Protein backbone atom coordinates (compact mmCIF):
# COMPACT_ATOMS: atom_id res chain seq x y z
CA UNK A 1 0.00 0.00 0.00
CA UNK A 2 1.22 3.43 -0.85
CA UNK A 3 -1.80 5.16 0.63
CA UNK A 4 0.04 6.89 3.44
CA UNK A 5 3.03 7.91 1.34
CA UNK A 6 3.12 11.47 0.04
CA UNK A 7 2.14 11.78 -3.63
CA UNK A 8 5.27 13.82 -4.30
CA UNK A 9 8.49 13.92 -2.37
CA UNK A 10 11.44 16.06 -3.38
CA UNK A 11 14.66 15.63 -1.46
CA UNK A 12 17.64 17.99 -1.33
CA UNK A 13 17.03 19.66 -4.68
CA UNK A 14 19.68 22.18 -5.77
CA UNK A 15 20.18 24.13 -8.96
CA UNK A 16 22.78 26.76 -9.76
CA UNK A 17 23.09 29.08 -12.70
CA UNK A 18 26.77 29.99 -12.72
CA UNK A 19 27.58 31.34 -9.30
CA UNK A 20 23.94 31.93 -8.43
CA UNK A 21 22.33 29.24 -6.33
CA UNK A 22 18.77 29.52 -7.59
CA UNK A 23 17.57 26.59 -5.48
CA UNK A 24 19.64 25.45 -2.52
CA UNK A 25 18.99 22.07 -0.94
CA UNK A 26 15.20 22.27 -0.80
CA UNK A 27 13.18 19.28 0.41
CA UNK A 28 9.41 19.31 0.30
CA UNK A 29 6.54 16.90 0.03
CA UNK A 30 2.93 17.06 -1.13
CA UNK A 31 0.46 14.80 0.64
CA UNK A 32 -2.14 12.80 -1.23
CA UNK A 33 -5.27 14.84 -1.84
CA UNK A 34 -3.70 17.98 -0.44
CA UNK A 35 -3.45 21.46 -1.92
CA UNK A 36 -0.03 22.77 -0.96
CA UNK A 37 1.01 26.37 -1.50
CA UNK A 38 4.49 27.49 -2.47
CA UNK A 39 5.11 31.14 -1.81
CA UNK A 40 8.05 33.48 -1.59
CA UNK A 41 9.21 36.86 -2.81
CA UNK A 42 10.21 37.36 -6.44
CA UNK A 43 13.47 35.65 -7.26
CA UNK A 44 13.19 33.22 -4.38
CA UNK A 45 13.58 30.25 -6.73
CA UNK A 46 9.97 29.05 -6.94
CA UNK A 47 9.84 28.78 -10.70
CA UNK A 48 13.29 27.20 -10.96
CA UNK A 49 12.17 24.71 -8.34
CA UNK A 50 9.10 23.93 -10.47
CA UNK A 51 11.14 23.55 -13.64
CA UNK A 52 13.56 21.18 -11.93
CA UNK A 53 10.76 19.12 -10.41
CA UNK A 54 8.91 18.68 -13.70
CA UNK A 55 11.81 17.81 -15.99
CA UNK A 56 11.92 21.13 -17.84
CA UNK A 57 15.30 21.90 -16.26
CA UNK A 58 17.84 19.47 -14.89
CA UNK A 59 18.57 19.84 -11.16
CA UNK A 60 22.23 19.64 -10.10
CA UNK A 61 21.39 17.38 -7.20
CA UNK A 62 18.25 16.01 -5.62
CA UNK A 63 15.82 13.18 -5.81
CA UNK A 64 12.22 13.33 -6.98
CA UNK A 65 9.81 10.59 -5.98
CA UNK A 66 6.33 10.64 -7.47
CA UNK A 67 3.79 8.24 -5.99
CA UNK A 68 6.52 5.91 -4.75
CA UNK A 69 8.43 5.95 -8.05
CA UNK A 70 11.80 7.62 -8.52
CA UNK A 71 11.38 9.99 -11.48
CA UNK A 72 14.67 11.85 -11.15
CA UNK A 73 16.06 12.62 -14.60
CA UNK A 74 12.80 11.93 -16.47
CA UNK A 75 11.93 14.32 -19.29
CA UNK A 76 9.02 16.74 -19.10
CA UNK A 77 6.88 14.68 -21.47
CA UNK A 78 7.60 11.41 -19.68
CA UNK A 79 6.76 12.86 -16.27
CA UNK A 80 3.45 14.06 -17.70
CA UNK A 81 2.67 10.88 -19.64
CA UNK A 82 3.85 8.15 -17.30
CA UNK A 83 3.81 9.99 -14.01
CA UNK A 84 0.57 11.88 -14.60
CA UNK A 85 2.06 14.91 -12.94
CA UNK A 86 1.16 17.94 -15.00
CA UNK A 87 2.21 21.54 -14.78
CA UNK A 88 1.09 24.94 -15.96
CA UNK A 89 3.29 27.83 -16.95
CA UNK A 90 3.52 31.28 -15.47
CA UNK A 91 2.98 32.82 -18.86
CA UNK A 92 -0.32 31.42 -20.05
CA UNK A 93 0.14 29.14 -22.99
CA UNK A 94 -2.38 27.53 -25.29
CA UNK A 95 -2.27 26.26 -28.85
CA UNK A 96 -3.42 29.64 -30.11
CA UNK A 97 -4.37 28.74 -33.68
CA UNK A 98 -6.49 25.78 -32.59
CA UNK A 99 -9.97 25.95 -31.16
CA UNK A 100 -10.72 25.22 -27.51
CA UNK A 101 -11.93 21.68 -28.14
CA UNK A 102 -8.84 20.75 -30.18
CA UNK A 103 -6.64 22.14 -27.40
CA UNK A 104 -8.21 19.70 -24.98
CA UNK A 105 -8.17 16.75 -27.37
CA UNK A 106 -4.42 17.22 -27.86
CA UNK A 107 -3.99 17.28 -24.10
CA UNK A 108 -5.60 13.85 -23.82
CA UNK A 109 -4.08 12.10 -26.81
CA UNK A 110 -0.86 10.75 -25.35
CA UNK A 111 -2.80 9.29 -22.45
CA UNK A 112 -5.28 7.46 -24.66
CA UNK A 113 -3.02 6.06 -27.35
CA UNK A 114 -0.68 3.33 -26.08
CA UNK A 115 2.25 4.23 -28.35
CA UNK A 116 3.53 6.75 -30.88
CA UNK A 117 2.92 4.27 -33.70
CA UNK A 118 -0.78 3.93 -32.85
CA UNK A 119 -1.24 7.72 -33.12
CA UNK A 120 -0.65 7.39 -36.87
CA UNK A 121 -3.72 5.18 -37.17
CA UNK A 122 -6.92 6.33 -38.84
CA UNK A 123 -8.92 3.17 -38.20
CA UNK A 124 -12.05 2.56 -36.18
CA UNK A 125 -10.11 2.10 -32.94
CA UNK A 126 -8.37 5.44 -33.43
CA UNK A 127 -11.64 7.23 -34.22
CA UNK A 128 -13.30 5.77 -31.13
CA UNK A 129 -10.44 6.93 -28.93
CA UNK A 130 -10.67 10.44 -30.35
CA UNK A 131 -14.45 10.41 -29.92
CA UNK A 132 -13.97 9.47 -26.27
CA UNK A 133 -11.54 12.34 -25.84
CA UNK A 134 -13.98 14.75 -27.48
CA UNK A 135 -16.72 13.78 -25.06
CA UNK A 136 -14.42 14.23 -22.07
CA UNK A 137 -13.22 17.53 -23.52
CA UNK A 138 -16.81 18.77 -23.83
CA UNK A 139 -17.56 17.90 -20.21
CA UNK A 140 -14.50 19.82 -19.04
CA UNK A 141 -15.31 22.73 -21.35
CA UNK A 142 -18.76 22.95 -19.77
CA UNK A 143 -17.27 22.81 -16.31
CA UNK A 144 -14.80 25.57 -17.14
CA UNK A 145 -17.61 27.73 -18.53
CA UNK A 146 -16.13 27.85 -22.04
CA UNK A 147 -19.01 26.15 -23.85
CA UNK A 148 -19.98 29.20 -25.91
CA UNK A 149 -16.47 29.74 -27.21
CA UNK A 150 -15.50 26.10 -27.73
CA UNK A 151 -15.08 26.46 -31.49
CA UNK A 152 -13.05 29.66 -31.31
CA UNK A 153 -9.28 29.72 -31.72
CA UNK A 154 -7.74 29.83 -28.24
CA UNK A 155 -5.65 32.85 -29.25
CA UNK A 156 -8.81 34.94 -29.71
CA UNK A 157 -9.86 34.53 -26.09
CA UNK A 158 -8.99 36.62 -23.05
CA UNK A 159 -6.05 35.81 -20.80
CA UNK A 160 -8.39 34.49 -18.14
CA UNK A 161 -10.21 32.24 -20.57
CA UNK A 162 -6.90 30.91 -21.86
CA UNK A 163 -5.94 30.18 -18.29
CA UNK A 164 -9.11 28.11 -17.97
CA UNK A 165 -8.25 26.26 -21.20
CA UNK A 166 -4.83 25.49 -19.81
CA UNK A 167 -6.41 24.27 -16.62
CA UNK A 168 -9.00 22.11 -18.36
CA UNK A 169 -6.24 20.67 -20.59
CA UNK A 170 -4.38 19.47 -17.53
CA UNK A 171 -7.49 17.67 -16.31
CA UNK A 172 -7.88 15.73 -19.58
CA UNK A 173 -5.45 12.94 -18.63
CA UNK A 174 -6.88 12.25 -15.14
CA UNK A 175 -3.77 13.57 -13.40
CA UNK A 176 -2.53 12.52 -9.97
CA UNK A 177 -0.86 15.82 -9.26
CA UNK A 178 -0.92 19.27 -10.82
CA UNK A 179 1.70 21.95 -10.34
CA UNK A 180 0.32 25.42 -10.95
CA UNK A 181 2.68 28.34 -11.56
CA UNK A 182 0.83 31.50 -10.54
CA UNK A 183 -2.64 30.52 -11.79
CA UNK A 184 -4.17 33.84 -10.71
CA UNK A 185 -1.58 36.18 -12.19
CA UNK A 186 -3.01 38.83 -14.48
CA UNK A 187 -6.64 37.73 -14.58
CA UNK A 188 -9.71 39.59 -13.45
CA UNK A 189 -11.42 38.81 -10.10
CA UNK A 190 -14.40 37.17 -11.77
CA UNK A 191 -12.20 34.58 -13.43
CA UNK A 192 -10.18 34.15 -10.20
CA UNK A 193 -13.34 32.84 -8.55
CA UNK A 194 -13.90 30.46 -11.42
CA UNK A 195 -10.30 29.18 -11.32
CA UNK A 196 -10.58 28.68 -7.54
CA UNK A 197 -13.80 26.74 -8.02
CA UNK A 198 -12.20 24.59 -10.69
CA UNK A 199 -9.19 23.82 -8.51
CA UNK A 200 -11.46 22.87 -5.59
CA UNK A 201 -13.65 20.75 -7.87
CA UNK A 202 -10.62 18.90 -9.26
CA UNK A 203 -9.30 18.40 -5.76
CA UNK A 204 -12.53 17.25 -4.09
CA UNK A 205 -14.30 15.39 -6.88
CA UNK A 206 -11.43 14.12 -9.01
CA UNK A 207 -8.94 13.59 -6.17
CA UNK A 208 -6.17 15.61 -7.76
CA UNK A 209 -3.40 16.86 -5.45
CA UNK A 210 -1.94 20.31 -6.07
CA UNK A 211 1.24 22.25 -5.57
CA UNK A 212 0.50 25.91 -6.25
CA UNK A 213 2.83 28.88 -6.62
CA UNK A 214 0.69 31.94 -5.95
CA UNK A 215 1.17 35.56 -4.95
CA UNK A 216 -2.47 36.23 -4.14
CA UNK A 217 -2.37 35.59 -0.39
CA UNK A 218 -6.17 35.48 -0.04
CA UNK A 219 -6.34 32.65 -2.53
CA UNK A 220 -3.48 30.80 -0.85
CA UNK A 221 -5.08 30.98 2.58
CA UNK A 222 -8.48 29.96 1.28
CA UNK A 223 -7.47 26.89 -0.75
CA UNK A 224 -4.20 25.57 0.68
CA UNK A 225 -4.00 23.17 3.59
CA UNK A 226 -0.29 23.76 4.00
CA UNK A 227 2.09 26.46 2.80
CA UNK A 228 5.82 26.26 2.10
CA UNK A 229 7.82 29.49 1.96
CA UNK A 230 10.96 29.83 -0.14
CA UNK A 231 13.42 32.68 0.26
CA UNK A 232 16.67 33.15 -1.63
CA UNK A 233 16.55 29.62 -2.97
CA UNK A 234 16.10 27.93 0.39
CA UNK A 235 13.11 26.74 2.37
CA UNK A 236 12.34 29.31 5.03
CA UNK A 237 9.40 27.77 6.81
CA UNK A 238 6.35 25.62 6.26
CA UNK A 239 3.07 25.28 8.08
CA UNK A 240 -0.62 26.12 8.18
CA UNK A 241 -1.59 29.14 6.08
CA UNK A 242 -2.86 31.18 9.03
CA UNK A 243 0.40 30.60 10.93
CA UNK A 244 2.52 31.42 7.91
CA UNK A 245 1.00 34.84 7.33
CA UNK A 246 1.65 35.69 10.98
CA UNK A 247 5.24 34.44 10.84
CA UNK A 248 7.80 37.19 11.47
CA UNK A 249 10.45 35.63 9.15
CA UNK A 250 7.99 35.46 6.27
CA UNK A 251 7.02 39.09 6.73
CA UNK A 252 10.67 40.09 6.80
CA UNK A 253 11.41 38.11 3.64
CA UNK A 254 8.57 39.82 1.80
CA UNK A 255 9.35 43.28 3.10
CA UNK A 256 13.04 42.74 2.46
CA UNK A 257 13.78 43.46 6.12
Amino acid at each position, binding site marked *: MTGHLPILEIKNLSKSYGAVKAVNDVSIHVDRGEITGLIGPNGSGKSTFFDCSTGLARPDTGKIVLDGQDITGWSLNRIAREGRMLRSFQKTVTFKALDVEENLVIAGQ*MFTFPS*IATTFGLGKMSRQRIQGLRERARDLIKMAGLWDVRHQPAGNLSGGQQKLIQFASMLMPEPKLILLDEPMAGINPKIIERVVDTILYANKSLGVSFLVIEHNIDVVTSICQRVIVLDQGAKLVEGLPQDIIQDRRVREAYLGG
Partner: protein
Amino acid sequence: MSLTETAQQARRRDYRIPLAAVLVVVALAAPFIGSRYVTHSLIIALIFMLPAHGLNLLVGYTGLLSLAQAAFFGIGAYTAGLLAVTYGTSFYVNLIASGLVTGAIALPLGIPALRLRSTSFVMCTLGFVIIGQAISKNWISLTRGDMGLSGIPKPYFELGPLSFTLSGTTNFYYLALIIGAMATLAAWAIVRSPAGRNMVAIRENEILAESLGVPTWHYKLIVFMISAVFAGVGGCLYAYYLSVVSPLTFQMYYSTTMLIIVLGGGAGMISGTVFGSLLFVGLTEALRITPELRMIAYGLCLLILVFWFKNGFAPLINRFWNAIGGAR
Protein backbone atom coordinates in the same frame (compact mmCIF):
# COMPACT_ATOMS: atom_id res chain seq x y z
CA MET B 1 -30.70 30.26 -36.63
CA SER B 2 -30.19 26.74 -37.86
CA LEU B 3 -33.45 27.02 -39.77
CA THR B 4 -32.31 29.99 -41.84
CA GLU B 5 -29.00 28.27 -42.40
CA THR B 6 -30.55 25.17 -43.87
CA ALA B 7 -32.85 27.33 -45.97
CA GLN B 8 -29.88 29.21 -47.40
CA GLN B 9 -27.97 26.05 -48.02
CA ALA B 10 -30.93 24.52 -49.78
CA ARG B 11 -31.19 27.52 -52.08
CA ARG B 12 -27.53 27.37 -53.01
CA ARG B 13 -26.26 24.45 -54.99
CA ASP B 14 -23.28 22.37 -54.03
CA TYR B 15 -20.90 22.45 -56.99
CA ARG B 16 -18.02 20.72 -55.24
CA ILE B 17 -18.66 17.21 -56.48
CA PRO B 18 -19.15 18.25 -60.13
CA LEU B 19 -15.99 20.38 -59.95
CA ALA B 20 -13.99 17.54 -58.38
CA ALA B 21 -15.25 15.25 -61.15
CA VAL B 22 -14.18 17.78 -63.79
CA LEU B 23 -10.72 18.07 -62.19
CA VAL B 24 -10.31 14.28 -62.18
CA VAL B 25 -11.35 14.09 -65.84
CA VAL B 26 -8.95 16.92 -66.74
CA ALA B 27 -6.12 15.19 -64.85
CA LEU B 28 -6.84 11.94 -66.69
CA ALA B 29 -7.26 13.53 -70.11
CA ALA B 30 -4.43 16.08 -69.80
CA PRO B 31 -1.99 14.33 -72.17
CA PHE B 32 -4.66 14.41 -74.87
CA ILE B 33 -5.79 17.95 -74.21
CA GLY B 34 -2.44 19.73 -74.06
CA SER B 35 0.72 19.44 -76.08
CA ARG B 36 3.53 17.04 -75.28
CA TYR B 37 5.26 19.92 -73.60
CA VAL B 38 2.31 20.48 -71.26
CA THR B 39 2.42 16.80 -70.36
CA HIS B 40 6.13 17.11 -69.65
CA SER B 41 5.52 20.14 -67.41
CA LEU B 42 2.82 18.26 -65.52
CA ILE B 43 5.14 15.29 -64.98
CA ILE B 44 7.81 17.58 -63.48
CA ALA B 45 5.14 19.19 -61.29
CA LEU B 46 3.94 15.79 -60.08
CA ILE B 47 7.51 14.67 -59.36
CA PHE B 48 8.26 17.79 -57.31
CA MET B 49 4.97 17.45 -55.51
CA LEU B 50 6.36 14.41 -53.65
CA PRO B 51 9.27 16.09 -51.84
CA ALA B 52 7.00 19.10 -51.37
CA HIS B 53 4.40 16.98 -49.55
CA GLY B 54 7.17 15.72 -47.29
CA LEU B 55 8.41 19.25 -46.70
CA ASN B 56 4.89 20.43 -45.94
CA LEU B 57 4.62 17.82 -43.17
CA LEU B 58 7.85 19.21 -41.75
CA VAL B 59 7.42 22.96 -42.31
CA GLY B 60 3.68 23.39 -42.52
CA TYR B 61 2.56 20.94 -39.86
CA THR B 62 5.48 20.44 -37.47
CA GLY B 63 7.01 23.89 -37.85
CA LEU B 64 10.53 22.78 -38.79
CA LEU B 65 12.09 24.72 -41.64
CA SER B 66 14.32 22.34 -43.59
CA LEU B 67 16.39 22.74 -46.74
CA ALA B 68 17.42 19.10 -46.79
CA GLN B 69 14.75 17.96 -49.25
CA ALA B 70 17.08 18.24 -52.25
CA ALA B 71 19.59 16.00 -50.46
CA PHE B 72 16.96 13.31 -49.93
CA PHE B 73 15.65 13.84 -53.45
CA GLY B 74 19.19 13.19 -54.73
CA ILE B 75 19.71 10.16 -52.50
CA GLY B 76 16.44 8.68 -53.80
CA ALA B 77 17.44 9.40 -57.40
CA TYR B 78 20.87 7.77 -56.98
CA THR B 79 19.40 4.76 -55.16
CA ALA B 80 16.95 4.15 -57.98
CA GLY B 81 19.55 4.85 -60.67
CA LEU B 82 22.15 2.53 -59.18
CA LEU B 83 19.66 -0.29 -58.66
CA ALA B 84 18.20 0.04 -62.13
CA VAL B 85 21.55 0.29 -63.91
CA THR B 86 23.46 -2.26 -61.82
CA TYR B 87 20.83 -4.86 -61.01
CA GLY B 88 18.05 -4.16 -63.47
CA THR B 89 15.45 -4.58 -60.75
CA SER B 90 11.78 -3.76 -61.30
CA PHE B 91 10.55 -0.19 -61.08
CA TYR B 92 8.38 -0.71 -58.02
CA VAL B 93 11.21 -2.49 -56.18
CA ASN B 94 13.46 0.50 -56.84
CA LEU B 95 10.70 2.92 -55.88
CA ILE B 96 10.22 1.24 -52.50
CA ALA B 97 13.99 0.88 -52.02
CA SER B 98 14.50 4.60 -52.74
CA GLY B 99 11.97 5.51 -50.10
CA LEU B 100 13.37 3.11 -47.52
CA VAL B 101 17.04 3.96 -48.11
CA THR B 102 16.33 7.69 -47.94
CA GLY B 103 14.25 7.29 -44.80
CA ALA B 104 17.00 5.20 -43.21
CA ILE B 105 19.66 7.80 -44.05
CA ALA B 106 17.44 10.53 -42.57
CA LEU B 107 17.65 8.84 -39.16
CA PRO B 108 21.36 9.39 -38.43
CA LEU B 109 21.15 12.85 -40.05
CA GLY B 110 18.07 13.85 -38.10
CA ILE B 111 19.35 12.82 -34.67
CA PRO B 112 22.06 15.48 -34.46
CA ALA B 113 20.30 18.05 -36.69
CA LEU B 114 17.04 18.12 -34.72
CA ARG B 115 18.93 18.90 -31.52
CA LEU B 116 19.70 22.28 -33.06
CA ARG B 117 17.31 25.19 -32.72
CA SER B 118 15.67 27.21 -35.52
CA THR B 119 18.34 28.87 -37.68
CA SER B 120 21.08 26.40 -36.77
CA PHE B 121 18.78 23.59 -37.88
CA VAL B 122 18.16 25.32 -41.22
CA MET B 123 21.90 25.79 -41.79
CA CYS B 124 22.56 22.17 -40.89
CA THR B 125 19.97 20.91 -43.39
CA LEU B 126 21.54 23.15 -46.01
CA GLY B 127 24.82 21.39 -45.23
CA PHE B 128 23.26 18.02 -46.09
CA VAL B 129 22.59 19.17 -49.65
CA ILE B 130 26.16 20.41 -50.10
CA ILE B 131 27.63 17.22 -48.59
CA GLY B 132 25.35 15.12 -50.80
CA GLN B 133 26.59 16.89 -53.89
CA ALA B 134 30.23 16.57 -52.79
CA ILE B 135 29.85 12.84 -52.21
CA SER B 136 28.09 12.27 -55.52
CA LYS B 137 30.87 14.16 -57.30
CA ASN B 138 33.76 12.46 -55.57
CA TRP B 139 32.75 8.87 -54.84
CA ILE B 140 33.51 8.07 -58.45
CA SER B 141 33.62 4.27 -58.13
CA LEU B 142 29.97 4.31 -57.07
CA THR B 143 28.44 7.39 -58.66
CA ARG B 144 30.73 7.93 -61.67
CA GLY B 145 31.29 11.46 -60.41
CA ASP B 146 30.35 14.39 -62.62
CA MET B 147 29.50 12.10 -65.53
CA GLY B 148 26.56 10.84 -63.52
CA LEU B 149 24.63 7.64 -64.03
CA SER B 150 23.24 7.51 -67.50
CA GLY B 151 21.21 4.94 -69.31
CA ILE B 152 18.65 4.36 -66.62
CA PRO B 153 16.13 2.12 -68.39
CA LYS B 154 12.48 2.92 -68.85
CA PRO B 155 10.32 1.84 -65.91
CA TYR B 156 10.33 -1.91 -66.07
CA PHE B 157 7.73 -3.98 -64.26
CA GLU B 158 7.99 -7.63 -63.39
CA LEU B 159 5.18 -9.41 -61.61
CA GLY B 160 5.68 -13.18 -61.59
CA PRO B 161 5.55 -14.36 -65.18
CA LEU B 162 4.31 -10.98 -66.43
CA SER B 163 6.69 -8.23 -67.37
CA PHE B 164 6.42 -5.05 -69.35
CA THR B 165 8.24 -1.81 -69.94
CA LEU B 166 6.49 1.52 -69.68
CA SER B 167 7.55 3.90 -72.41
CA GLY B 168 6.39 7.22 -73.75
CA THR B 169 5.66 10.51 -72.06
CA THR B 170 1.94 9.86 -71.81
CA ASN B 171 2.42 6.59 -70.00
CA PHE B 172 4.95 8.14 -67.67
CA TYR B 173 2.44 10.87 -66.92
CA TYR B 174 -0.08 8.29 -65.72
CA LEU B 175 2.58 6.60 -63.61
CA ALA B 176 3.48 9.95 -62.00
CA LEU B 177 -0.21 10.75 -61.57
CA ILE B 178 -0.90 7.50 -59.72
CA ILE B 179 2.14 7.87 -57.46
CA GLY B 180 1.36 11.57 -56.90
CA ALA B 181 -2.24 10.73 -55.95
CA MET B 182 -1.07 8.02 -53.57
CA ALA B 183 1.44 10.39 -51.94
CA THR B 184 -1.24 13.06 -51.55
CA LEU B 185 -3.50 10.50 -49.92
CA ALA B 186 -0.68 9.36 -47.62
CA ALA B 187 0.10 12.95 -46.58
CA TRP B 188 -3.60 13.57 -45.99
CA ALA B 189 -3.88 10.43 -43.85
CA ILE B 190 -0.89 11.47 -41.74
CA VAL B 191 -2.20 14.96 -41.00
CA ARG B 192 -5.70 13.67 -40.26
CA SER B 193 -4.41 11.10 -37.78
CA PRO B 194 -3.95 11.88 -34.07
CA ALA B 195 -0.22 12.11 -34.84
CA GLY B 196 -1.02 14.96 -37.24
CA ARG B 197 -2.68 16.78 -34.36
CA ASN B 198 0.44 16.27 -32.24
CA MET B 199 2.55 17.66 -35.09
CA VAL B 200 0.44 20.82 -35.15
CA ALA B 201 0.75 21.03 -31.37
CA ILE B 202 4.54 20.97 -31.72
CA ARG B 203 4.36 23.71 -34.34
CA GLU B 204 2.09 25.85 -32.18
CA ASN B 205 3.98 25.47 -28.91
CA GLU B 206 6.59 22.82 -28.40
CA ILE B 207 7.02 23.24 -24.63
CA LEU B 208 3.27 23.12 -24.05
CA ALA B 209 2.98 19.97 -26.17
CA GLU B 210 5.84 18.47 -24.20
CA SER B 211 4.16 19.35 -20.90
CA LEU B 212 1.04 17.51 -22.06
CA GLY B 213 2.98 14.30 -22.56
CA VAL B 214 3.77 14.60 -26.28
CA PRO B 215 7.23 13.12 -26.95
CA THR B 216 8.12 15.99 -29.26
CA TRP B 217 11.63 14.77 -30.02
CA HIS B 218 10.37 11.41 -31.32
CA TYR B 219 7.68 13.05 -33.41
CA LYS B 220 10.12 15.48 -34.98
CA LEU B 221 12.49 12.66 -35.86
CA ILE B 222 9.70 10.50 -37.30
CA VAL B 223 8.31 13.36 -39.40
CA PHE B 224 11.83 14.20 -40.59
CA MET B 225 12.19 10.59 -41.76
CA ILE B 226 8.75 10.53 -43.37
CA SER B 227 9.54 13.74 -45.24
CA ALA B 228 12.73 12.10 -46.49
CA VAL B 229 10.78 9.06 -47.69
CA PHE B 230 8.52 11.34 -49.75
CA ALA B 231 11.60 13.07 -51.21
CA GLY B 232 13.31 9.75 -51.94
CA VAL B 233 10.30 8.42 -53.84
CA GLY B 234 10.19 11.69 -55.80
CA GLY B 235 13.90 11.34 -56.57
CA CYS B 236 13.32 7.83 -57.92
CA LEU B 237 10.64 9.09 -60.30
CA TYR B 238 12.94 11.92 -61.34
CA ALA B 239 15.80 9.53 -62.15
CA TYR B 240 13.51 7.35 -64.26
CA TYR B 241 11.98 10.30 -66.07
CA LEU B 242 15.31 11.89 -67.04
CA SER B 243 17.05 8.49 -67.38
CA VAL B 244 20.14 10.28 -65.98
CA VAL B 245 21.25 11.11 -62.45
CA SER B 246 24.06 13.56 -61.87
CA PRO B 247 25.45 15.52 -58.92
CA LEU B 248 23.23 18.37 -60.15
CA THR B 249 20.30 16.54 -58.57
CA PHE B 250 21.70 17.76 -55.24
CA GLN B 251 20.87 21.39 -55.87
CA MET B 252 20.02 24.14 -53.45
CA TYR B 253 17.76 25.45 -56.18
CA TYR B 254 15.62 22.33 -55.80
CA SER B 255 15.35 22.79 -52.03
CA THR B 256 14.21 26.38 -52.50
CA THR B 257 11.77 25.35 -55.25
CA MET B 258 10.23 22.83 -52.88
CA LEU B 259 10.04 25.46 -50.18
CA ILE B 260 8.38 27.92 -52.56
CA ILE B 261 5.84 25.24 -53.50
CA VAL B 262 4.98 24.68 -49.84
CA LEU B 263 4.96 28.29 -48.66
CA GLY B 264 3.46 29.66 -51.86
CA GLY B 265 0.79 27.02 -52.04
CA GLY B 266 -0.05 27.47 -48.38
CA ALA B 267 1.92 25.78 -45.59
CA GLY B 268 -0.06 23.39 -43.44
CA MET B 269 -2.54 22.53 -46.17
CA ILE B 270 -2.37 19.48 -48.41
CA SER B 271 -4.33 21.20 -51.17
CA GLY B 272 -1.82 24.07 -51.02
CA THR B 273 1.08 21.78 -51.87
CA VAL B 274 -0.81 20.20 -54.77
CA PHE B 275 -1.73 23.61 -56.13
CA GLY B 276 1.75 25.00 -55.40
CA SER B 277 3.54 22.31 -57.37
CA LEU B 278 1.27 22.77 -60.36
CA LEU B 279 1.69 26.52 -60.23
CA PHE B 280 5.38 26.95 -59.48
CA VAL B 281 6.93 23.95 -61.24
CA GLY B 282 4.39 23.94 -64.03
CA LEU B 283 4.95 27.67 -64.44
CA THR B 284 8.77 27.50 -64.58
CA GLU B 285 8.56 24.65 -67.02
CA ALA B 286 5.99 26.40 -69.16
CA LEU B 287 8.04 29.61 -69.12
CA ARG B 288 11.00 27.83 -70.68
CA ILE B 289 9.49 28.87 -74.01
CA THR B 290 10.66 32.41 -73.27
CA PRO B 291 14.05 31.85 -71.67
CA GLU B 292 14.84 35.58 -71.51
CA LEU B 293 11.72 36.45 -69.55
CA ARG B 294 11.50 33.25 -67.56
CA MET B 295 13.28 34.22 -64.38
CA ILE B 296 11.76 37.72 -64.46
CA ALA B 297 8.26 36.29 -64.67
CA TYR B 298 9.07 33.80 -61.94
CA GLY B 299 10.45 36.54 -59.71
CA LEU B 300 7.36 38.64 -60.35
CA CYS B 301 5.15 35.76 -59.25
CA LEU B 302 7.12 35.47 -56.03
CA LEU B 303 6.78 39.20 -55.38
CA ILE B 304 3.01 39.04 -55.87
CA LEU B 305 2.94 36.11 -53.50
CA VAL B 306 4.94 37.84 -50.79
CA PHE B 307 2.94 41.05 -50.96
CA TRP B 308 -0.60 39.88 -51.48
CA PHE B 309 -0.80 36.26 -50.40
CA LYS B 310 1.25 36.02 -47.24
CA ASN B 311 -0.27 32.66 -46.31
CA GLY B 312 0.01 31.26 -49.81
CA PHE B 313 -2.83 30.49 -52.15
CA ALA B 314 -4.45 27.72 -50.15
CA PRO B 315 -6.70 29.98 -48.01
CA LEU B 316 -8.01 31.39 -51.28
CA ILE B 317 -8.69 27.92 -52.64
CA ASN B 318 -10.41 26.98 -49.40
CA ARG B 319 -12.67 30.02 -49.55
CA PHE B 320 -13.55 29.23 -53.17
CA TRP B 321 -14.17 25.58 -52.30
CA ASN B 322 -16.49 26.54 -49.44
CA ALA B 323 -18.24 29.13 -51.59
CA ILE B 324 -19.13 26.66 -54.31
CA GLY B 325 -20.14 24.20 -51.60
CA GLY B 326 -23.02 26.47 -50.67
CA ALA B 327 -21.56 27.66 -47.36
CA ARG B 328 -21.52 31.35 -46.68
